[in-house]
């Protein structure tokens, strides 16, 4: 893969600006120059199974925009986007680029990354795994990357949840609470103080556990950037664990709430931030 790429982070990860910035910092640390691209304007269309005309239009537009970037290479973050590109988008479009998952790029260049990981991260961390992203076997790649972090004790449990990330489980009754409960039990058995998430939806759906459980929930890119001496605050997690609507709004601030739309914020965003993980 070339040294200049489009970094396609996806849609739902925009809740986690820290993850996107950490991912960019890591790619740059291993010598990759990135053009970040994500949000609704770069949606893959995977959520549009009930409207294939819309799905096709979104996919076609996104592929054309990547072609216009002219890098010849796209690095993905989101497993749903990666899967949709692999299984659908490229089949009827003309992508003029190769694509790989960020874990593959970081793993290929892990010697360069290791040289930058000079700060100790004193944690006993358990990897939260799913077994469903079969396009890229991310779990062993991430284990190798986290083993580079000085001070980090990593526990890889036997348990891996179904699906490719937690959001895949959410529509199936009992499935997400079962996975959350199993994760909590595995953390206790491991004696870990931190759960390491791989994907953004796991971070989104598990980070609220910090209010009630004796462990932290941290994405793997945050641990890697912490080892580089870069601390990027997880604002979504802070909002999720704020404890009251008033505190959430205080943390976010009136200016940002107004930019998001006051009414929509109260009707759609605030309820999401107040929702607790079920187990």
């Amino acid at each position: 893969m070339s040294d200049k790429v489009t970094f396609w982070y996806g849609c739902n990860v925009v809740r986690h600006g820290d993850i996107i910035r950490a991912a960019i910092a890591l790619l740059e640390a291993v010598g990759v120059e990135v053009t970040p691209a994500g949000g609704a304007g770069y949606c893959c269309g995977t959520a549009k199974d009930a409207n294939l005309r819309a799905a096709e239009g979104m996919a076609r537009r996104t592929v054309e925009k990547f072609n216009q970037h002219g890098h010849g290479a796209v690095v993905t973050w989101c497993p749903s986007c990666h899967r949709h590109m692999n299984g659908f988008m490229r089949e009827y479009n003309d992508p003029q680029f190769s694509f790989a998952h960020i874990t593959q790029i970081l793993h290929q260049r892990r010697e360069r990354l290791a040289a930058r990981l000079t700060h100790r991260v004193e944690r006993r961390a358990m990897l939260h795994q799913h077994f469903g992203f079969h396009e890229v076997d991310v779990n062993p790649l991430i284990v190798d990357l986290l083993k580079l972090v000085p001070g980090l004790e990593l526990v890889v449990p036997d348990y891996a949840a179904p699906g490719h990330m937690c959001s895949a489980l959410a529509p199936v009754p009992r499935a997400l609470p079962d996975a959350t409960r199993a994760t909590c039990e595995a953390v206790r058995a491991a004696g870990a103080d931190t759960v390491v998430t791989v994907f953004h939806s796991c971070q989104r759906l598990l980070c609220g556990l910090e209010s009630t459980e004796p462990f932290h929930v941290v994405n793997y890119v945050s641990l890697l950037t912490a080892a580089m001496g870069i601390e990027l605050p997880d604002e979504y997690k802070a909002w999720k664990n704020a404890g009251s609507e008033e505190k959430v709004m205080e943390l976010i601030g009136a200016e940002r709430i107004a930019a998001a739309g006051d009414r929509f914020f109260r009707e759609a965003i605030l309820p999401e931030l107040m929702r607790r993980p079920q187990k």
Partner: protein
Amino acid sequence: MSVTNFPAKPATLIEHLGQFIADTLTRCTRCGACFKACPMTGYAPGLPAADAQDVVAGVLGLLRQEAGTADALAWIEACTQSGRCSAACPEGINAMKMMRVARMSALGSLGAPRKIAPREEKGFFRRIGAFSQLQFSADEIEKWQR
């Protein structure tokens, strides 16, 4: 000399799905290995006791734009794209994709009547836009998301 005619690259999503469906219907032997490998069948009432070959036959019916069966629809609703089905298929069919395309069919996207409700989150893109406003500067949104 035998000549194999491969289908041309499809120009549209619907064309691609048509090719995928035709290929799957040709290759699937209805052995049921995909269903037996699924980690999610316990989440759908009645499915653990269902006959694997019958459930798969119902899924193939959905690919043919037929009615399918209640068990096939229940399996589709429980699918989380774990991919164990694809690994189990002795014919090398992408069974996970088969389930996804059967879901599209059950949603009424391929011409047959809708049999299951869409899962699409109401206000999805508005939510994405709102969180972008909360997490990114105007400059980042302009450069990264337009």
